[in-house]
């Protein structure tokens, strides 16, 4: 397994897209942190839990790009014939998907840490400019950042699962981006009490986005973990079952 993991890691870090997506995730994370601070009117208490969470949860604003990375890491293999090469070395295809799962959990963690660090540095600068000190010791800051990291890791694995189910990069990317960016927000806006259980919306709970309609953090984490696990099992079953003809 360790040889397979090393191969998958090597594959990921040698792929230029993975680095561009990291850059994108960090940039969007910084914007996601600054935007609520810019939007806050002068009367807002920047030191309140709500303000701190409102700023810091933005660190995961680019986490959707982690899903993209995971999809590219798996479905992309069917695009360039890499899947064939992977399975020639490791005919037990489930092991290949398992190695990719671990690899993109780590990729998600790296993206999450990078985006969290950039977001925290940005917020620290903003608070300092307002003669305030960003209270890193307060749970509203570090628990929010930890939640963002957890979302990033889970989204990496979600991307692997979606890529394994679809095995077509374009279909997987369009479908998952449309679902997370368009469909879920519309459903949630229409009936928040019902659709707050959707996985994308649940990720907002986990990253502690302030919001009255969201499910509790633990429930959000559970929804996301179960969704990812079910998708991953489905992906492994399909990859094991189907012929590799590309």
């Amino acid at each position, binding site marked *: 397994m360790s040889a397979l993991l090393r191969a998958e890691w*090597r*594959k990921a870090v*040698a*792929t230029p897209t993975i680095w561009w997506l990291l850059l994108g995730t960090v940039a969007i994370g910084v914007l996601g942190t600054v935007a609520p601070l810019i939007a806050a009117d002068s009367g807002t208490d920047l030191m309140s839990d709500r303000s701190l969470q409102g700023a810091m949860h933005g660190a995961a604003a680019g986490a959707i790009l982690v899903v993209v990375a995971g999809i590219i890491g798996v479905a992309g293999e069917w695009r360039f014939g*890499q*899947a064939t*090469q992977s399975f020639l070395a490791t005919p*037990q295809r489930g092991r290949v998907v398992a190695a990719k799962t671990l690899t993109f959990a780590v990729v998600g963690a790296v993206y999450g840490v990078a985006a969290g660090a950039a977001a925290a540095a940005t917020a620290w600068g903003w608070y300092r400019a307002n003669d305030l000190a960003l209270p890193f010791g307060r749970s509203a800051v570090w628990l929010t950042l930890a939640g963002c990291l957890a979302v990033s890791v889970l989204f990496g694995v979600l991307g692997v699962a979606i890529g394994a189910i679809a095995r077509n990069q374009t279909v997987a990317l369009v479908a998952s981006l449309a679902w997370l960016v368009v469909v879920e927000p519309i459903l949630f806006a229409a009936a928040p009490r019902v659709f707050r259980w959707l996985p994308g919306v649940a990720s907002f709970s986990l990253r502690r986005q302030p919001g009255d309609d969201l499910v509790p953090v633990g429930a959000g984490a559970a929804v996301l973990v179960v969704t990812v696990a079910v998708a991953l099992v489905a992906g492994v079953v399909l990859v094991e079952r189907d012929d590799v003809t590309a």
Partner: protein
Amino acid sequence: MVVNMCSQTAPIACRSLTKVFAGPAAVDDLSFEVAPGTITGFVGANGAGKTTTMRMLLGLVTPTAGEALVKGRPYRDLHEPRRQVGAVVDGPGAHPGHTARTHLGIIATAGRLPLRRVGEVLAAVELGEHAGRRVGGFSTGMRQRLALAGALLGDPDVLILDEPANGLDPPGIIWMRGLLRRLAAEGRAILVSSHLLAELAEVADRVVIIDRGRLVADATLDELLSGSGPVVELRCADPAAAAGALVAAGASVERDGDLLVVSGASAREVGEVVSRAGAGPVHRLAERATRIEDAYLALAGSLGTPSRATVADARGAS
């Protein structure tokens, strides 16, 4: 019970191998073996089932029925398969953003092969100076060489190569033949496919010909050629009438444009039949030795036609 030991340990064996995707079987009750130290040409028109057969041997496609065995086992059951089997299927399988060295390094790592092999195989396929270039910028010929390098990484004694000469220029094809001969001389069993029998005629010890998934011939080249006597080439004013009369007279006729290739009759007999049928005047009447293509066409009748039509279509379209 008589057990054929040789058959039990054949490096490559298909036994009643069948694959049905949808509609007619892509591979239909196909059985053949490849012996160590030999090159077996695997020939058929495009779509005849060569690639599907090879993918079944490599554990990528699951057979509907029958067995596809490498060293007596399904590919999935091989220990460190990259050390045992080298394969070319559909190009190098490299991400276009990876360099040749990175691509082979990834394969070597996953296959638990020493990384020093990367440089060795790149030199063997004469890609050493391009090791640091991205695969996305490679020509078709370079991609095929890189695919072969991947197959050779584990120094395997079984090679399964699907159209490895596709896209190679004439010097590349000659180079490939030399490489295959060297690899077979080292005792490796090689199964190499092509839709052109002529491409393999010079290197193959044996030829397995399939048509629409079925076995048409499994023989040495000598056997293929000795099966039929010399042929007669005929060009005359009314080839259709001549062909009809010759077939009626018991000869078999392959038509190639206005040239008829007749087997089963001497030049004299052909001349007399054409004269009686009033299909003259005769422009050409010559006996010649059977060529590999004649044997191929005689065995697989329709086989030559689709590939030619494909070439013609491609020309017409471009």
